[in-house]
């Protein structure tokens, strides 16, 4: 816009930029939010409401279900299935700890030592996603097969004696035992641990390591006092991303476990699809969600990550 001095005065041209945002302008953010909100309404809030109402219904498939505010379903679900609840927390917790122990060194290596191999290693971390979850889990059936080399080696090294004594395996078998389920969970959720860990480690300024060394910290002290505390955001998000889906998972327990390793996910699946007891299935889902919410809240409070920059 170039103004020519002395030009005859014309009707003031509208200056769209300078005009205070009108009603339409003020609504723009809401228009942008709309698709997401609609999606959440249709695919999250409505199913939730539907499930909530299902969980307090009574009846049968033949006679139909009716909302009777039957909260006893929740109590019965806890009374009947607390072992599966406990098992879910235990297996998912073990898998999370294993993921952390396996994933942290790997993420550390990729972030600080991999050099030009960094991107290759990152691709390898997510490479398993190129095949289906189901196929990968089925592959573990072969890996852990009774006559396979893994079980043979573990037996020869007397590892199975120890794990059997701990109740994690049964005799010479690994398949259809808690160990197999935990192995499957660990394998399937490992990338969800490694990626956030890598991201938070990679963000750490290398000069902080030098500064710690300069201030008399041995390499192990540098790790404990500087690297690990600074990677806490990654540890917290990694453990959450592993623990939450693992505790609701049923595929691993289904394919690699037995009736003695059923997790809460398996119960929900059976109730919904085989027994067709929808209220119990819905109540179990809500109980799992509540349990996870309580545990996660407690965990985040304890880890104090809000204190980090």
């Amino acid at each position, binding site marked *: 816009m170039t103004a020519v001095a002395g030009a005859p005065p014309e009707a003031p041209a509208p200056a769209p930029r300078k005009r205070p945002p009108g009603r339409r302008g003020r609504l723009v953010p809401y228009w942008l939010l709309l698709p997401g909100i609609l999606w959440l309404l249709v695919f999250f809030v409505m199913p939730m409401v539907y499930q909530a109402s299902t969980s307090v219904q009574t009846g049968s498939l033949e006679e139909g279900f009716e909302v009777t505010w039957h909260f006893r379903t929740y109590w019965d679900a806890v009374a009947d299935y607390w072992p599966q609840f406990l098992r879910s927390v235990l297996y998912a917790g073990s898998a999370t700890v294993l993921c952390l122990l396996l994933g942290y060194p790997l993420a550390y290596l990729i972030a600080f030592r991999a050099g030009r191999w960094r991107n290759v290693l990152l691709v390898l971390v997510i490479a398993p996603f190129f095949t289906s979850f189901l196929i990968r889990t089925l592959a573990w059936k072969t890996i852990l097969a009774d006559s396979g080399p893994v079980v043979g080696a573990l037996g020869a090294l007397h590892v199975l004696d120890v794990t059997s004594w701990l109740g994690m395996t049964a005799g010479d078998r690994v398949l259809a035992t808690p160990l197999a389920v935990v192995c499957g969970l660990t394998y399937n959720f490992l990338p969800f641990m490694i990626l956030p860990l890598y991201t938070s480690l990679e963000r750490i300024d290398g*000069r902080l390591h030098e500064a*710690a*060394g300069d201030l*008399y910290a*041995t390499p192990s002290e540098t790790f404990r*006092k500087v690297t690990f505390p600074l990677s806490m955001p990654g540890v917290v998000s990694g453990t959450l991303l592993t623990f939450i889906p693992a505790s609701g998972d049923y595929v691993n327990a289904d394919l690699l476990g037995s009736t003695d390793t059923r997790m809460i996910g398996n119960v929900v699946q059976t109730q919904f699809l085989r027994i067709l007891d929808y209220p119990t299935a819905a109540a179990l889902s809500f109980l799992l969600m509540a349990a996870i919410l309580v545990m996660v809240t407690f965990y985040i409070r304890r880890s104090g990550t809000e204190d980090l920059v």
Partner: protein
Amino acid sequence: MTTDRGGDVRLSGISKTYGSFTAVHPLDLTVPQGSFFALLGASGCGKTTTLRMIAGLEEPTAGTVSLGGRDVTALPPYKRPVNTVFQSYALFPHLDVFENVAFGLRRRGIKSVKKQVGEMLDLVQLGEQARRKPHQLSGGQQQRVAVARALINHPEVLLLDEPLGALDLKLRRQMQLELKRIQTEVGITFVHVTHDQEEAMTMADTVAVMNAGRVEQLGAPADLYENPRTTFVANFLGTSNLIEAKVETASGDDLVVEAAGQRLTLPAARCAAPAAAGGAVLLGVRPEKISLTPADDADRVPAGRNRVTGRITAGSFLGVSTQYVVDCPACPEFEVYVQNIDRDPRLVPGAEVVLHWDPAHSFGLDAAQDIDAGVETAGADEEVAAR
């Protein structure tokens, strides 16, 4: 370990190569205990690498580092009685100011740190900020935390890697004086790396000018400024007018040289190059040593002074002084700084002038060097600093 006030930092034949690139050529350097020593040079000259080799953060390709007579070449950083103030401070973001400062003490197993940390924070005037996190502090405050964090360990040597580079000019001046005050107060050896020649000259007792992995010259700031021994030092440290000249007579205390038909004299003692009659030499003189007289008054110039004639091409008024650029046959861009005591209205661009100075203010350099060495590097570096 740190109670032993051993003394000197001694680098013997130390060098560093990365593949085929030599960052530091074999170097011998001794920093006396208690001195404020500056390594000055443009970026990429090897000064930071040298500093990091003293800290143990970089392993020398050859040579040894010894502190107070003890060879520390093989020691990892955490075993050396040396602390560093890093260029970007490298404060621990998850720890507050108090814990940052206490870090070194705690690593050495000292339990009661409260009193020491308190005293150190008072020394750097940060007592009020003890419970703040680094990101809540200003640049100058962060810089002081970095100094306190290093000094509290009473290292034998404190290494400073361009610690003022991130601060604005005014704050930098203030911190220069403050660092100098702290150094005088605690008496620890400071080794300071900087590309800012003014900073080096303000703070250090001894300055080593580095160029392309070598120490060009080492000495007290005034000595380096007055008696540069290479064109790089002459140009990098302040400004020098260098005139290509031919030696006429080289007998006695003075050298008589000839440049563009004019006869100039310089003290033989201030000539860094061997000069024989008929040989070439570079005659240098600093811009502030020169007086300007309009050509009309040429006969009023006292006898015995070196004189050169020329025409003013530019003049810029800077308040305290006026900087002129004079085109002379001997030197096309002769720089002259004239103090603004009585300004002569005839000294304007286009005016014919006589430049004259005391022959004792001239110095001589080896003519077989790049006459512009250090000019561009200094300019490029200022650009980097300004960005």
